């Protein structure tokens, strides 16, 4: 006998799960969100660890802000969920000196033709996020005949190496190769595809959330709770059973929930191979799940809370950028780093990017007493399984210290600051914290061309519906797969509304109504 009954059960209280629940609850469904963790928000988690600093544990620079349909539909701005668009957005500070390259949100700093390509891919892909996907060939075909779609495709066909070559300026080449790495494209010769290109394009115009990324997730939660959705934290789901016109979900601590539909926001391997009984998963889906590719490496993130002035990197203007890429002499150095980490080797230096969070949002550190206090986040791409031995606490601590020492050498002024608190997560730590952060990446599987659009995760399931009755996908492992887009949860809500005969109360998203170059 289930402990509780609902219309819809959402597995995972991350951004997608919270989005899905809020939309469905407003449509009148009785919804419950089950999350393994002690809190909601998933990879949009921000924590202060009860220290005077706020640490964005996983997602920080978001690809979308005001364009997010849930931001509009759920009226989050009125709820004091405020977004910021830092400008300049990026800086590449060459190791060993030399003038830094600073890139602004409008692309200033990059080659003119490249900016056009980024704009084109942005305009072409954005409208495709919030709708059921087509096969990728068809998308590309329509785009090739559409107005401006050709430019988008030109970028999508480029490999990281070709993108670097197109950049011209040596620093821009280094920066773009680095951004490809952040997007999960480690190999020099893997074409970015439309989604990969879109992700890179969006890194030039990031959004951050005032009060930390979790504030956005909390806005989604509040909208859902106000509509009657229920939330059960510390609910680690370990099985989904279907049959008899209902779905049942069980947690590791022995509770059972039943409903008409379940939305899994977990990756395809977990959903189809671990949670569902092998007998109910159609063979093609099972094979797709088995063949599903996670990224070869992830991110090591160090969080540092300092008392004193924030460091200067390169120039004052470069120091104002949201993401300050440091430690790479040139594109070749970036390429070596990416190659090393994707092959399980720790790179020679923990080069990466620094964000001084509090330069942009002072609320992310306490105002005092005895300040000034600043929050630094440092990201460096790192192997998921280092060949020198798996990540453990000791190795992670050593690596965090290495990052801190490295930052001290790459910046000016840090020696005068006192380090009050530091935390860090290796790629393995991120995976252990967040059930969706496989291999320490926020994407639940690489965004390579073969794993996007209708192939995310498989043509039978990419529209969030699956062939298994009552089972839906709504996370990063289903189209669109862009972290921070909330698209998976949004699309799942639309499909479930239709299937359960609920009224879809929200309008077509503005990004769909905008003039588009591609077919719909």
């Amino acid at each position: 006998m289930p402990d509780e009954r609902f219309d819809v059960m959402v597995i995972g209280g991350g951004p997608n799960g919270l989005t899905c629940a809020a939309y469905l609850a407003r449509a009148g469904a009785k919804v419950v969100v089950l999350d393994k963790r002690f809190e909601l928000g998933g990879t949009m988690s921000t924590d202060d660890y009860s220290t005077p600093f706020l640490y964005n544990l996983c997602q920080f620079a978001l690809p979308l802000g005001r364009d997010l349909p849930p931001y509009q539909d759920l009226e989050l701005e009125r709820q004091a969920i405020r977004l910021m668009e830092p400008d300049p957005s990026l800086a590449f500070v060459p190791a060993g000196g030399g003038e830094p390259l600073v890139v602004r949100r409008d692309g200033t700093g990059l080659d003119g033709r490249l900016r056009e390509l980024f704009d084109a891919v942005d305009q072409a892909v954005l409208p495709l996020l919030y709708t059921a996907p087509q096969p990728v060939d068809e998308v590309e075909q329509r785009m090739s005949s559409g107005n401006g779609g050709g430019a988008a495709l030109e970028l999508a066909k480029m490999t990281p190496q070709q993108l670097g070559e197109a950049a011209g300026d040596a620093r821009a080449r280094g920066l773009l190769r680095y951004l490809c790495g952040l997007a999960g494209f480690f190999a020099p010769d893997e074409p970015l595809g439309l989604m990969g290109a879109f992700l890179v394009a969006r890194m030039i115009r990031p959004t951050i959330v005032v009060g930390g990324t979790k504030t956005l997730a909390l806005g989604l939660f509040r909208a859902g709770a106000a509509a009657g959705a229920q939330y059960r934290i510390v609910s680690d789901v370990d099985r989904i059973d279907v049959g008899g016109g209902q779905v049942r979900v069980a947690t590791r601590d022995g509770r059972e929930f039943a409903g008409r539909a379940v939305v899994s926001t977990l990756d395809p391997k977990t959903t189809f191979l671990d949670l569902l009984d092998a007998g109910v998963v159609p063979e093609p889906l099972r094979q797709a799940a088995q063949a599903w590719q996670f990224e070869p490496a992830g991110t090591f993130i160090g969080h540092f809370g300092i008392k004193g002035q924030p460091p200067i990197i390169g120039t004052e203007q470069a120091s104002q950028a949201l993401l300050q890429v440091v430690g790479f002499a040139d594109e070749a150095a970036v390429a070596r780093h990416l190659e090393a980490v994707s092959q399980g080797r720790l790179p020679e230096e923990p080069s990466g990017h620094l964000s001084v969070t509090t330069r942009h949002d002072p609320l992310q550190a306490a105002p005092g007493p005895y300040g000034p206090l600043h929050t630094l986040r440092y990201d460096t791409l790192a192997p998921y399984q280092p060949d020198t031995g798996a990540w453990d606490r000791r190795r992670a601590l050593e690596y965090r210290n290495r990052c801190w020492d490295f930052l001290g050498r790459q910046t000016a002024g840090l020696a005068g600051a006192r380090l009050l608190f530091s935390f860090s997560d290796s790629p393995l730590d991120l995976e252990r914290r967040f059930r969706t952060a496989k291999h320490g990446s926020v994407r639940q599987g690489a965004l390579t061309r073969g794993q996007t659009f209708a192939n995310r995760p498989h043509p039978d399931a990419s529209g969030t519906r699956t062939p298994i009755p009552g089972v839906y996908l709504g996370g990063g492992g289903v189209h669109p797969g862009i972290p921070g887009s909330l698209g998976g949860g949004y699309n799942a809500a639309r499909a479930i509304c239709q299937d359960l005969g609920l009224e879809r109360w929200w309008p077509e998203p503005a990004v769909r109504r905008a003039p588009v170059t591609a077919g719909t």
Partner: protein
Amino acid sequence: METFDVIVIGGGISGGLPAATYLQKAGLKVAVIEAKPELGNFCPSHETWPETLDSPHASINFSGNSPALEDLELVSKYGFRLKTTPVVLGTTHRDGTNCLICYDPQRTAENFAKHSQRDGETIFGIQNRVLEKMVEMNELAFYSPHPDPGKFEEILKICAYVMGRDIDELETMTAPELIEQTFEADRVRQTVLCPVALHLQGAPLARGQGAFAVALSLFYTTGLAIGGNEALVDAVTECFLDHGGTIYTNCPVERIEVHDGRASAVILSERAALPGARFEARKAVISNVGARKTLELLGEDVMRAADDRLASKMKHWKMDERGSTVTSWLIQGEMPWGSADFDPLIKRAHLIYRAFDSWQGAKDYLWAMVNNNTWAAFGNLIEILDYGQCDPHAVSPDGQRVIRGEEALPYPLRGLGGPEAWDSPLRDELLQKRHDVMDSIAPGFKARLIEAYQWTPIDIWRVNQAAIFGQVLGGDFSEDQWILDRMPYRMPIRSLYMSNAVWPLGLTWMAAGYNAAQVVAEDLGLRNQPWWTHRPVAWFLRNIERLLEPLTLEPVAVGR
């Protein structure tokens, strides 16, 4: 600009959030305005290390005392889960002994009798009388809006009754004196003193108040929330939102507007996510930010015009008697308690104190605290929590767990560099020495230690604006700031109420917020709600067997 019936400044778990939720459920339109990104800022859970749980600040869950569990359907509807262990609290000592106060008086007596047969009999009698008066005392002492002289008299009577003495006698005794007169074994004496000494139920050396505080400290339940304390915040928040409440986070408040002697609006700071926004309060403003900060938000002139004496009291509200210092240790395996052979039940306890080396040491400690002698006080009294005893989610699959320790120490650091020296290498020195203290009561602790974090009083103040000088309970409980002399719930400015710096202390038992809601609801004629009827501790006592059942987890599923 939006208008609400009630605006609550500060969404903390002890006061603001429960007050808001009761009033919203009673039909008012309520907004909670919080400076930090999350509500219950001081009552969080953290996965400081992956797959472990820690609630370093508000750590023990006292919600078992609160009628809110039933009134607000926190368990039955909003998924809150509480667990406890057979031991309410215990102490462990370097000599290999321990003292365990258990929910079952017989079991407490059994443990105390290992120290002294007579003390075993004494505690059995006291604990049974406490159980008899548990609900009544909680209602009178904690879940009533004080000052209330009538109820105050009743509280003193019950204190005397449970200790088996006359009120007149208690009124002339300090805490150590009463304890000496009641128990003969030193370890037992140290144990009974420690909650009074750490939690500041009263100034232990104050005659009268110190003795009553010993009795009052016996009326607590202790437990741990599944998922850590943030689970409690989440459940109350969900209830608040479900009934239509509004939350603004990242919104520091700049000012409380008073017009014609009435608190009428709240204005946000320019730093807020809604910079400079103004919210009008039709019926009430509840301040959960403490005495000093409330004065600042009102403006001293405004407060002086309303009540000059109270304005002075707020300006000089005592906060510096003790600042909290907290350590979270990540260890491999279980706590290696040195006294596990003496009474093995300690291996199942969630709350254990390191409580002095001798009875004389305990008295010296009190004196060191009063005299601001930080190093003399150090290492004597540490509250130690083991989350994994109640919540298997708190222990990682490879057996790592967080042990959390809190020690209150004098804040000023005179002669040691002043308060800012809490940021100096002193903080590391403190941490290293605390490792040694732990190793002395749990041999092998240091060998199991993987990593640790340390919070000083100024870290805590930085985290929690209401915790000036690291004082986390709403102000000192000195003789001039005790039950009848704390901040009033109903302020001399019309429509203005307090839910912090009031009686009783701010904790996860949500008493201050419950009481603030009572006062506002009474003033607005809304107190008679059919759901607002439950008695404190009643749910806990009814469900104790279930709360004691350990929660177990299936192994992680791989492939089906």
